[in-house]
């Protein structure tokens, strides 16, 4: 059984488009995250939700909007895509306590903006 799943795995789109990435976890965790990994493999947190509430919102353009319909899902919607948004986006989840527990990562969504 997949613990943290993301769809789609690959996403190729043109500048200016709007796209969404979905994430689901079946681990019963209360805390979920979105990370962006750039071409140099540097992983940076974007958002964190705890029990459907936004806890962390790093300096991310407001074109990025996370939505958590329930504890098991955290989706990421991106408006007006730009070339610089090309990266791999990872969803993760953990028990509450944020940085105190190991995080379980999804397989990633490779976004390419042309």
């Amino acid at each position, binding site marked *: 059984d997949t613990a943290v799943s993301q769809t789609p795995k690959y996403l190729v789109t043109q500048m200016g488009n709007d796209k969404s990435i979905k994430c689901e976890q079946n681990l019963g965790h209360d805390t979920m995250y979105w990370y962006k990994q750039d071409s140099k493999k540097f*992983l940076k947190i974007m958002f964190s939700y705890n029990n459907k509430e936004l806890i962390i919102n790093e300096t991310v353009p407001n074109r990025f909007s996370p939505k958590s319909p329930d504890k098991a899902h955290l989706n990421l919607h991106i408006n007006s895509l730009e070339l610089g948004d090309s990266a791999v986006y990872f969803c993760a989840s953990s028990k509450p306590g944020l940085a105190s*527990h190991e995080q379980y990562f999804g397989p990633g969504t490779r976004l390419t903006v042309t």
Partner: protein
Amino acid sequence: SQQGEEDPQALSIQEGENATMNCSYKTSINNLQWYRQNSGRGLVHLILIRSNEREKHSGRLRVTLDTSKKSSSLLITASRAADTASYFCATDGDGGFKTIFGAGTRLFVKA
């Protein structure tokens, strides 16, 4: 700026050799974690060491933590080709509110 920085950036060894990766961080921490990322995959948690611990083992992995030097090391003994991956350290920065990852060490184990 990054909380954790790994050293070296890349490491190439022969199967059977030991691999040592280092991580330095800037602010005080409650815990430090190591993760592995295989090419094209998500990160997988390897081990967590708390600030009051100095050493921890898990199978062929040995992690040390020196809070006075703000550094940690990950040792993989008797490496295998399957250990080829990127390894990241992660600390609980910003007062423990979030996990901050370093840039990673890319390990190549040649068969």
